[in-house]
């Protein structure tokens, strides 16, 4: 990526090969003024030195998995890794599996696709995702209409039931550590993005000191949030440069490569 197109404050990112796990594309009924089409999204990624991104579709999030996946199919680009929306029924599992996915995203929350992640409801879906090591994205925003406590209980049960499923939690927010840290200790397949997580003072440093950098993935929440904020946090965190680069993209590429293998 050319340094000349990157914001001057972030110029040193030019050779970092940044990969973003938390990007959305398509029209939004809620955030219409911020949504970006493919070309504008790529330009915005260029401005912040983001080379590649895992991309999900607003239509899947706000409306329907099948419609969202159709929309995502239309946005194919070499710089995007699609995150296909998955539901627990057999048809959905079959149609997602036909896409040979590296990443799936579930929208299980009561105000979204509204299903349980427990075995009795979603067993076959998570067995499939686990079998093929498909990185599974779950946003903590799924649980905003319930209590934070309940959301974390659901996640704990899911991780217990499917101990080899690679999971990336998105949009944790910075008040999560009293839930997150015990889960990180128990479940080595648990990863999370830093988009809203690293908002607390020196939180990234403290987490790397306690757990290493391997489970942290760079995420921006483009197009809703500016990548300038989490990138500035990453750039100024007092952590080893190897950890900084792993968070910037190395960890995510490793997870996706495992899926390919």
């Amino acid at each position, binding site marked *: 990526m050319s340094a000349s197109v990157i*914001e001057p*404050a*972030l110029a040193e990112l030019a050779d970092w090969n940044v990969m973003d796990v938390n990007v959305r594309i398509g029209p939004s009924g809620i955030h219409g003024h*911020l949504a970006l089409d493919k070309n504008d999204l790529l330009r915005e990624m260029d*401005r*912040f030195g983001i080379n590649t991104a895992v991309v999900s579709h607003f239509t899947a999030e706000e409306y329907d998995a099948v419609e969202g996946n159709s929309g995502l199919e239309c946005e194919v680009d070499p710089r995007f890794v699609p995150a296909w929306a998955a539901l627990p029924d057999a048809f959905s599992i079959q149609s997602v599996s036909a896409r040979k996915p590296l990443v799936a995203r579930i929208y299980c929350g009561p105000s979204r696709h509204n299903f349980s992640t427990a075995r009795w409801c979603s067993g076959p879906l998570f067995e499939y995702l686990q079998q093929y090591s498909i990185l599974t994205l779950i946003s903590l925003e799924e649980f905003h209409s319930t209590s934070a406590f309940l959301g974390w209980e659901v996640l704990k049960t899911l991780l217990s039931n499917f101990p080899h499923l690679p999971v990336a939690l998105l949009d944790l*927010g*910075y*008040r*999560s*550590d*009293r839930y997150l840290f015990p889960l990180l200790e128990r479940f080595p397949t648990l990863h999370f993005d830093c988009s*809203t997580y*690293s*908002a*607390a*003072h*020196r*939180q*990234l*440093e*403290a987490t790397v000191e306690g757990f290493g950098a391997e489970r942290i993935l760079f995420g921006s*929440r*483009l*197009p*809703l*949030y*500016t*990548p*300038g*904020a*989490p*990138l*500035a*946090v990453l*750039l*100024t*965190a*007092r952590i080893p440069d190897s950890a900084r680069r792993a968070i910037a993209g190395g960890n995510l590429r490793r997870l996706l490569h495992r899926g390919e293998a």
Partner: protein
Amino acid sequence: MPIVDCHGHVGIHPDFPAYKTGAEEMLQVMDLLNIERLAITSTLACYNDCARGNAEVDRVLKEHPSRFLGYITVNPNPEGLALAQLQRYAHFHTPPLIKMHPACQHYPVNGPKYVPVWDYANQTHAIVLVHTWDSDPECSPLLLEPIARAYPKARILLGHAGVTWRGYEQALEVAKTHPNTFLDITGSQSHRTILEHCVRQIGGDRILFGSDLPYLEAALSLGRVLTARISDQEKEAILRTNFLRLLSPGGL
């Protein structure tokens, strides 16, 4: 360019483990990010005990007078405590810096028990930092509109500028009509293009940088400003000169 930061704290936080919160640790981060001065309020005072909290700020100011400025945090309960605290800690700064956190104290910013504080702020041309939140019945930015009108000599910082995108719109609605109101962009939500939107709406002269150190990551707010599509002059105003101007006696 050294940064002057309008929104920081001392203390810890009840609902998440805050890291590296000591004054010395904050100074390390301030040096790293080139934050020359930080205006602080006590979290203990916001949540629970104004008297002990303001004393905590007093101690930090005495230890590091060139790096920290102190807000006097006021609580409307019990009646009389707020004015007593304002008088006791009047030496923090002239004009006074006052912090109100109506959400923590479960009392609306436009409630009658705050009237003596607003009178005091108006008389002393105080800088009043009010925690605000989108549509909150106790601290919506919109509640500050009649207050800004009634107390035109108080300089009111709309803390967090309402936080959400809608909260920002509410803060802008107030700021557009009241020159004694200012947007403090401290916050965890990094809405893309919001800063550009604010500058278009009210110009760059009434927007202030705040970090929320040591709860929020100062680099987060700083990254938002440094990568916004606004001019370098506007960035300098937001990061430094706007708050310095307010701090000077008679400055608006």
